[in-house]
């Protein structure tokens, strides 16, 4: 009996050791990549780097201000489009899970989530860039908004679906009309979950390059004109990393570092929000 328990304990320990080891092996490449980006990028970043546009070939210095501003504007515009639509669709899906419309739109959301980002770029190119006759920040924002939508929709839907039905009944039994039940009770109670979905979707699109290649296109100058081509961080990294000049490579590393920090901060923020504002049901 004792011997058998001994064997079982050993097996248990071996198994535990194995999963810890595998988890470590899986995490290792990620950590190496992160450390490498930090090592290559951190010394590029200074005030000059953040406030100047890229220098022409042959000149030293130069920064990424055009891409920082561009990314900010484009992500903001995408959010303005995708967040309200995403939340409303998410509410619909969680409120009416058994209707035909919900089934098909749920299916579309899943497919949309799987569409390669470059395809989204091509579609927006044909829908918006070609008719308007120019690359523009608007078209880039729309491409990114399409990338954001499924994440916002699904996270809203799943958050709201977890709320107990008794909550809705409590409000309805007080004579509260349906739209106010949703807006004043259901959405506020799921706020933390919805917000974290939004944050994650922003973290996801801020690094997208492919949909911007033939929409926002890129621009070596600082601009805020949304009907004109605009530079973004991932596109700047793409352009400068594939160039043959060392100076430009350094610029790309610096931009990668900034992008990484952005995503990291968004993720930490999301974690904090879900912990702080999570409502005890």
């Amino acid at each position, binding site marked *: 009996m004792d011997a058998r328990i001994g064997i079982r304990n050993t097996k248990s320990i071996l198994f535990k050791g194995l999963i810890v080891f595998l988890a470590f092996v899986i995490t290792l490449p990620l950590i190496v990549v992160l450390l490498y980006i930090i090592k290559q990028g951190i010394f590029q970043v200074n005030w000059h780097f953040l406030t100047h546009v890229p220098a022409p070939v042959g000149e030293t210095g130069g920064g990424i201000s055009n891409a920082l501003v561009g990314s900010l504007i484009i992500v903001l515009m995408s959010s303005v489009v995708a967040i309200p639509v995403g939340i409303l669709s998410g509410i619909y899906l969680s409120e009416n899970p058994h209707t035909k419309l919900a089934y098909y739109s749920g299916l579309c959301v899943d497919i949309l989530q799987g569409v390669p980002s470059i395809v989204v770029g091509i579609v927006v190119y044909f829908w918006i860039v070609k008719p308007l006759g120019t690359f523009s920040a608007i078209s880039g924002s729309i491409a990114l908004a399409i990338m954001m939508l499924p994440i916002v929709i699904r996270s809203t839907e799943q958050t709201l679906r977890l709320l107990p039905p008794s909550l809705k009944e409590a*409000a*309805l*039994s*007080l*004579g*509260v*009309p349906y739209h106010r039940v949703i807006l*004043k*009770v259901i959405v506020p109670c799921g706020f933390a979950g919805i917000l974290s979905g939004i944050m994650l979707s922003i973290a996801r699109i801020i690094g997208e390059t492919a949909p911007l290649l033939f929409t926002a296109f890129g621009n070596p100058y600082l601009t805020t004109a949304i009907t004109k081509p605009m530079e973004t961080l991932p596109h700047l990294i793409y352009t400068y990393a594939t160039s043959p000049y060392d100076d430009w490579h350094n610029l790309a590393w610096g931009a990668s570092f900034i992008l990484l920090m952005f995503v990291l901060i968004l993720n930490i923020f999301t974690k904090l929000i879900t912990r702080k504002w999570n409502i005890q049901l």
Partner: protein
Amino acid sequence: MEHTVVSANKFNAWFGDNHVVKDVSIGIEKNQVIAVMGPSGCGKTTFLRCINRMHELIPGATAKGSLKLYDDEVYTMNPIYVRYKIGMVFQRPNPFPNLSIYDNVIAGYKLNGLKVAKAEQDRIVEKSLTSAALWNEVKDSLHKKGTFLSGGQQQRLCIARAIAMEPEVILFDEPTSALDPISTSSVEQLFHELKENYTLIIVTHNMQQAARVSDKTAFFYMGELVEFDVTKKMFTAPSDVRTQNYITGRFS
């Protein structure tokens, strides 16, 4: 019949094809405590939820027949108005988790967007919490979240929330089945005080509770209202053999 608050006449309710409330006729008088008892699945909760039109919120649920609040047909009134007039307390306490105790009590006004002056709000909150025998326990923590209270306190908070709307009738759907014995007795005590101002209809699984708290008792069985009479008579000399069998524990 001028004191009849809620009356049903040949009232029926269905879930899809499932006929759960069959030809129920009943007249409920003002300022009384009515217990509705019966075995599981007898339709008592469904009947209760028809009175404030919560039944129809379940997909596939339908109802037919006459159900009146005073002289008005409930099923032709605006359901929102019906629910103003007929409050409800649920099986499990369900305070709004995002609101403070204060805001939970006043929720019926706030969520409906009814403008009430601050002083009037304070008055309503104090009065409702006092009526729900909760004021002394929470008066110093009105702005804490309602979900920090114990189960029994939460249930009394839900009662206060219903009272705040000044309804005619308050429906209770097995209000103590999720509570411990001490909380249960405090809620039961409340029923005696509340009937001064309101008419209470209480669905309960618990026969002792029905006997303790109610003036009249209705016994539902297989969707039918078998017997409706003064509680004392129901428990001592029921006129229907099914009631007798139920009370003596021959089925449950």
